[in-house]
């Protein structure tokens, strides 16, 4: 019963978060002092050296307002905005790549971003936890402090410096990976798939290295604290082996806060996407967002923001729903 109401509450919260997110995305452009329609018309007018007639401009204004969903008062706009997004996942067309729909652009870019960033975040988390567990469990041994040192060394390096250094080292000085990777599009074939994996390795390794250090340090601290817990001491006095204590006692308990940390870092995936995809010219959502921001392509920008809100909220939901599997205190209330 407790579990069911936990799940129901969590899913309810998920929809509330989505609703608030969508509302804010709707309000933001309307709070801006610039009107994108005026801006666009001004641009066209100057390109045409002021030869556009006022009828043509009025006609264009109607078309553009339709494209932006600016018909009617704010409330009507809001309702139709929610309808378009919830029922048909429609953000309107892109302006830079008119008439390509924004949703199609996002759907093309999203698998790239999720594939690279989710994978590397999860790998960094898993490796960091394992190394941190060993470093923490044997924290009195010298060899274990070397493991911790890896974390201390990696953690404070800013991501962009790490990324540029890796690119310099592994693509320029030692050209193991391509300096500017190409990612084939279209029908997937085994060769293409191999090429994508190979070209994704360098950004992937960089992301893993960047996330790895924090996970080591965090897990190490949690492990050290957990080894002092009475139930771990008791397990030792029971004669339980080091392996049993480390895996079933310390790891299972120290993992719980780390799962929350994973949910938070999955939420940061889109932050990472922007820099990673710029540095490694990787064709994901980050690159789409950057192009849109440069070109004033509002529809694409808000589409990308909406999709990040949905993804972050979903990642949090999935992790929270996994939590009862790991902690029986939530499962059996």
């Amino acid at each position, binding site marked *: 019963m407790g579990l069911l109401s936990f799940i129901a509450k969590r899913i309810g919260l998920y929809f509330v978060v989505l609703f608030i997110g969508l509302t804010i995305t709707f309000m933001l452009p309307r709070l801006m002092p610039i009107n994108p329609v005026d801006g666009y018309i001004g641009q066209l007018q100057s390109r045409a050296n002021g030869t556009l007639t006022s009828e043509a401009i009025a006609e264009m204004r109607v078309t553009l307002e339709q494209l932006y969903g600016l018909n009617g008062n704010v409330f009507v706009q809001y309702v139709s905005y929610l309808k378009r997004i919830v029922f048909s996942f429609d953000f309107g067309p892109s302006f830079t790549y008119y008439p390509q729909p924004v949703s199609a652009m996002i759907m093309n870019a999203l698998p790239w971003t999720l594939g690279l960033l989710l994978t590397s975040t999860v790998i960094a988390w898993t490796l960091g936890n394992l190394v941190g567990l060993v470093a923490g469990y044997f924290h009195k041994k010298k060899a274990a402090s070397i493991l911790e040192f890896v974390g201390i060394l990696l953690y404070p390096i800013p991501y962009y410096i790490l990324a540029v250094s890796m690119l310099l080292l592994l693509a320029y000085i030692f050209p193991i990976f391509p300096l500017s990777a190409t990612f084939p599009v279209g029908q997937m074939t085994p060769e293409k798939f191999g090429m994508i994996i190979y070209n994704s390795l360098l950004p992937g390794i960089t992301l893993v290295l960047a996330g790895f250090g924090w996970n080591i340090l965090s897990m190490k601290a949690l492990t050290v604290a957990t080894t002092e*817990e*009475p*139930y771990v*001491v*008791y*397990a030792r*006095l*029971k*004669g*339980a*082996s080091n392996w*049993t204590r480390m895996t*079933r*006692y310390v790891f*299972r*308990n120290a993992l*719980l806060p780390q799962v929350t940390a994973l949910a938070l870092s999955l939420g940061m995936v889109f932050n990472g996407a922007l820099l990673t995809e710029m540095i490694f010219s990787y064709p994901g959502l980050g690159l789409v967002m950057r192009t849109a921001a440069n070109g004033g392509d509002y529809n694409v920008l808000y589409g990308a923001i909406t999709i990040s809100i949905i993804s972050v909220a979903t990642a949090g939901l999935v992790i929270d729903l996994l939590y009862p599997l*790991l*902690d*029986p*205190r939530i499962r*059996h209330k």
Partner: protein
Amino acid sequence: MIRLNDLKVSYRIGNRVIDAVDGVNLTIPDNCIVGIAGESGSGKSTLMKAIYGDIQQPMYLSRGSIDYGLKGTDGKPVTTANIGKEWFKTVSYIPQSSMNSLNPVIRIREQFIDFPGTDSNKKRVLERARQYIGKLGLPPEAMDSYPHQLSGGMRQRVMIALATFFQPELIIADEPTTALDVVVQKEILMLLMELQEQMGNTILVVSHDMGVHYQVTHKMLIMYAGRVVEYGDTESVFADPQHAYTRMLIDSLPTIGDDSMRGVMASAAGASGDRAYDAQPVLVEVKPNHFVAQSTAAKTLVAGATL
């Protein structure tokens, strides 16, 4: 019969050495419950750790030895060096913080089999454990529960079940009832006494509660500043305490309608005080089976107290 021969247990902290147990000579007979009392820092827990064989940095045995007089599961005599293999089989332990001593994320039944037992067939062990906890007043479903689903009393029964499951010769109970309310406390103590009678083994009970000692133990050991100040049959110790410190402990039991606590605390200051109160105390048998630490200093205290 367990014999401690001039046992000295120390902690090395930096360059400092602290003798937490300082020259204890003691014979603990078989088939009895021995209570150990003394204030915090008197060395009770260190003595228990040393007897249990849980000797880890920075703690070490600096002098003396322990003769367990027990045979392990492999038939060899138990010594300080090999006692780790006998944990929960020949020698077992009921912890102080029993409330937090069960792993919160795994079921009770898994905590019955996640250490090397006497039988490698885990299923058979579990079947026996399920029957066994029934005898200890626990429902069989308790085996499939997580610790947070059990009450404090049930958890302590689980701890006792774990500690007594392999019928050990010696059980060390470190304040086994501290975290429990008085009703549950009594049930748990009765259970311990019953089990001891059935198994005919030795239980060492550390407690601050003199009432617990009076009800449960056959023999009493009073420790002060790392030394034994009095050791004897519980009835005799309570009826006629020889050492001023023992008297203070017994007198500190509150009695209804008695408001003389202030006087007791004042004499406590006299009994404690300097740690080097006594160079080498010798246990003197004042009555049959009733020993008290005596030397010049202690004698004056005892004499002063009796006069």
